[in-house]
Each structure stands twice: as C-alpha cells, then as structure tokens.
C-alpha cells in the first residue's frame, strides 16, 4: 500500500467531521430527549459522571458531553477558514516571490523572513484587546492573515527550483506567458505540496486559537475545544473529579492534529518520493 498514512489520516479526519456535524443533534436526541442539554442552568452545575451525564455537567449547568460535542465543529471551522486564508495568501506571495528575479526577489525574501520571525502571539493578543466582539470568522481571518509568512517561506524555494527545470524553459520558448507558466507549468506539480502546507496551516491555526483561549484572552465565549479546556482549567474541574471535561477536548485536539499529521506524512511522500525510498532503502 503506497499511501496508507493518507488513507488512515483521512478516515480519522472524516470521522471527527461526522461527529462534529451530526454529533450535537444525535447526542441531544438520544440522551436528552425533550431537554435542552446545551442551555445554561439546565442542570445542577458540577455534577459528577453518571449514567445521565457521562462526563458530568459543567460550571454553567450544561451537560459536559453536549458541550464537548458541540465544541468540535467551531474548532474545526476556525482551523479550516484560517488555514485556507493563510495558505492562499502564502501561495500567492510565495509564487510571486519565487517567480520574480533580481531586486524584487531579494525584497520579497527579506519581507517574508521579516514577517516570519515576528512573534505573532503578542500581536494577536493586542488585536484582541481592540476588537470588542469576536466572532468565528473575524478570529479565523485574523489567524489566517498572521499565518501566511510560513507558507510563503516554504513555497518560494519550491517555485524557484521548479522554474529552473528544462520543461519550463521549453514552455517559455513555445511562447507561453507568465500566467500560463505559473498556472499550467508550476502550479500542478506543486499541488500535493500545497496540500501539505494547507494541512500544516490548519494545525497552526487551531493551535494558536486554543492557545489564545487558554491564556485567557481569546474570543471570549466562542465555544471551541480550546475554550472548554481553558474553562476547565480555570474552574479546576480535575480537582472536582470531572476528568472527562478536560481530557476529552484535549484528546480531540490531539486526535485532529494526529490525523492531519498522518495526511501530511503521506502528502510529503507523494511530493518527495526520495524520502520514501531512502527510508525504506535504508543504508
């Protein structure tokens, strides 16, 4: 099997997407018919695990499992939107930088390196101080805008190396213009690599989002996995004995990262076949 890791990773990812989409209604139908498990004050807060509440209730009197299941979707959504934003920005800038030569190339390299080293967390936090009301899209877009430099940084050298290949020279000689060369000659072979970078960006955005929540300044009230972890930590749910309310969201985050990581490993092998032969061929 050539790409087992892509398949396993995709299945894992598909499973959690299904849970995120169908989970909330299924859980509320099956476990809480006729109740409102996700509404504040529905139950007595901080109840321990029981048959009725598998991972207890949270500090706001909601069912823990219900909160957990409905937190997965927003987390994934943020990762997806932010990842798509930073990948598309980074790919455009990386292609322009890689395709340009001379002074423009030097300038763009300096620009990319510069943005890359700026620690983004304080900038994000500072923006968070200015923005009064966060919503999911605002947060995702801002995370995405801060994430492009990494994408551009890794795309640029790939474009540079591709454009020196002889088939590109041939395309130039046969009269293709710059856009045709970029879209017909350079982009297609890089697609697996772009997929790889996209998946890395999703991980990065989800990491940043959960980090913001845990530091306590994130999008207050956005019901994500990171928010659930942060809330659990602040209310010390572990000391109360509500292990699941901490471990489940943490586990779900790690699960998503693992799935994306598997897909990444596979895409990397597709893009870079030498990696596989050297690993298998050994010494």
């Amino acid at each position, binding site marked *: 099997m050539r790409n087992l890791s892509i398949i396993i990773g995709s299945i894992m990812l598909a499973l959690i997407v299904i849970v995120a989409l169908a989970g909330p209604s299924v859980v509320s139908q099956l476990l809480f018919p006729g109740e409102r498990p996700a509404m504040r004050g529905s139950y007595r807060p901080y109840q321990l695990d029981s048959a009725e509440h598998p991972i207890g209730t949270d500090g706001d009197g909601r069912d823990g499992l219900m909160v957990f299941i409905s937190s997965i979707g927003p987390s994934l959504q943020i990762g997806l939107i932010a990842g798509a934003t930073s990948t598309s920005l980074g790919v455009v800038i990386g292609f322009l930088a890689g395709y340009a030569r001379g002074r423009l190339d030097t300038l763009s390299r300096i620009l990319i390196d510069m943005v890359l080293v700026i620690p983004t967390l304080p900038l994000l936090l500072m923006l968070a101080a200015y923005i009064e009301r966060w919503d999911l899209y605002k947060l995702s877009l801002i995370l995405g805008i801060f994430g492009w430099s990494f994408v551009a940084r890794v795309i640029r050298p790939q474009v540079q190396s591709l454009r020196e290949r002889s088939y590109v020279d041939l395309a130039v000689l046969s009269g293709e213009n710059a856009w045709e060369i970029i879209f017909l000659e350079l982009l297609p072979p890089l697609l697996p690599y772009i997929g790889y970078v996209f998946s890395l960006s999703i991980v990065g955005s989800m990491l940043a989002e959960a980090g913001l929540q*845990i*530091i306590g300044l994130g999008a207050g009230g956005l019901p994500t996995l990171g928010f659930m972890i942060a809330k659990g930590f602040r209310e010390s749910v572990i000391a109360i004995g509500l292990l699941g309310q901490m471990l489940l969201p943490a586990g779900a985050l790690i699960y998503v990262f693992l799935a994306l990581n598997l897909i990444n490993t596979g895409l990397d092998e597709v893009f870079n076949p030498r990696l596989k032969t050297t690993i298998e061929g050994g010494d």
Partner: protein
Amino acid sequence: MTANSDTRAGEAAAERQDAGRREVLRYALRRFGVYLFTLWAAITVAFFIFRLVPGDPMNILLGNLTRAEGRQRDAAAEEAIIARYRHIFGMDEPLPLQYVNYLRKAVLGGLDLGPSFVEYPAQTKDLVFRRMPWTLGIFTTSVLLAWIVGTGLGALIGWLQRSRLSQIAVVISTLLQITPVYLVALGLIIYVGYTWRILPAGGPYARHLQPEWSWEFISSLLTHAILPMLSNMIVIGAGFTLGMRALMISVLGEDYLTFARAKGLSPFTVLKDYAFRNALIPQVTALAIIVGATLNGTFIIEVLFQLPGLGTLFVQAMGLRDFNTMQAVVLFSIFAVLTLTLIVDLALPLLDPRVRRTA
C-alpha cells in the same frame, strides 16, 4: 576576488585563507545589515498596526476606568481628561510625527518606549527589563536543552533505523511533537503538580522566600523552573528528534557514506565524522526557525505557571488596557527573536564551510 593568488603555492594557501576570512566577514556584515533593516521594519509595522486599528486606546482606557468606577458619565469632563492624557502621551500629534518621535526616543533615548499608561510614570522599559530574565531564562535554557537532547536522540534513532526500539521512539516523539505545548504544560500542572504533588506547579519560587543568594532560595527557584522548562522541552525536543532522524536517514543514503564504510572506517567514526556532522548543519538552521514560535509557547507557559515573565506582564497590561506596555513587550520580543536568530545565523559559518563560500 583573489586576482594574483596563484604566484607561489605557500602564498596562495595563505591568501586563500585570507579570502575565506574576508568572505566570512562579508557574510557577517551583510547578515547584520539585514538584521538592522528587519528590526526597523518590524518596529515600524508594530507601531502602525496598533495606531491604525480602530479604537483609540485612550478612549478605551478611560472609558473602562469611568465605567469601572460606576460614576455618572460626564461627557465634557471625560473629553477633557482624554485630551489631557493624549497630550501627556504625545498622542495628539499627527501620526508621522508620533512615529518619528517614537523611533527617535527608542533609538537615541536609550530604548525609551514611553511611560506605562497604568503605572505612570514608571517606564515601560523598566517593567520589561524586570520581567525579561524570566522569559529569556526559561526560553533559552529549555530550547538549548531540547536541541541537545533531541539532536543526540534523533541521530541515534536515525542510525539505528531498523530496530524496534527506534520505531517506538519515532511513534512516541511524533505524538509528543503534535501535542500543543500548553496541553503538555496543563498535564504536568494537573498531574505532577497537584495530583501527585511531586514538584511545585505555580509561581517563581516558594511564597515565604525573598530573592537572595541563599541555597534555599536558589533551590526553590530551580525546582519551580523544572515543570515550565520540561513542558517546553518535551514538545520542542520531540520535534528536534524527528528532524534530526530524518536528516540522519537522508545522509545515510548518500554515496560518500557507503564509500566511508567500504574504506573500512569504524562505524563510530562514520557516525561521528561523516553522518552526524553533515546532518547537523540543517539542524542548526532549524533552531533559528523555531525561535519565534517557541517564544509564543513560552508566553503561554508563563501564564499557566504564574511566572513573572514578559508573557504575564503582557496579559496583565492587556487586562488593564495598558497599550504602551503591551507595545513595549511586543517590540522586545521581536528584538529578542531577531537577535537570537542572528546569533544562530552567525554561528552557522563556523559549522558549514559552504555558507562561507556562497555568502
């Protein structure tokens, strides 16, 4: 470059060495120029981002204060107060002038970044300097230790690539590497700190102690530092391990290694002089790349472990809407990241002769 270097053999060698040195110097100077330019640009970007986002800091700050005190809002008086404060903090001038003043004070005024809004007249510079040792201490120590451990471990795993043990190590490091650093920190706090009570999991040192040069204080400081550093180390170290393993494996596939073995060199010599050394260079570059991301993680770790570093300062300033202090923290962290990256980059030619030539 070396126009007449081929007159006599001895001179040629000396001259080549000389040229090599000049190349290194040129590389260093160029790198330093890029550093200064990047620093300036980063400061400029940071300055304008925070001046251009909607919302006047003074309005937000004073609006919050009056709201917090619950007084009847007197619009005219509030306007007057805001105008007065804007004047004190030099924010009533046109933007370009503010920028020039800001740069002038920061560069010529000995890093004068203005007073703190909240702890006025305390200088933000002093606040930052007081907190900086904590952040840099935790950060540099854990990154360096993680790099050393990860590089060694990765080289070993890469060398023993087929054994079961190294496969298990790969799976474990992959899992650790994808775990966010704050989740590792939370796990350590909850289990090691509170459930098992093995190590202290919060605060810089025991509460009853004062900073002094005593064994009691220093040991308390060190035991309190273990968990924060460990959280950083586990995640970064796992990343370095995997990176080094991949590098090692690709080096092991090279022909010159087969040749070295065929020459009859001992496996240890091959490992040390041929494989390890060549895999090390990209590994040092990797060190430079992760500096920024790791600083982000360190900020979160400080907050979780309640250490009085820059991250905590930032979060406190943020809660009080102390924009000058926030800006100072951002600038200092940019400065720290750029400087650390510069140091790594300048160390690179010592390891890799190719950088000297191509610089």
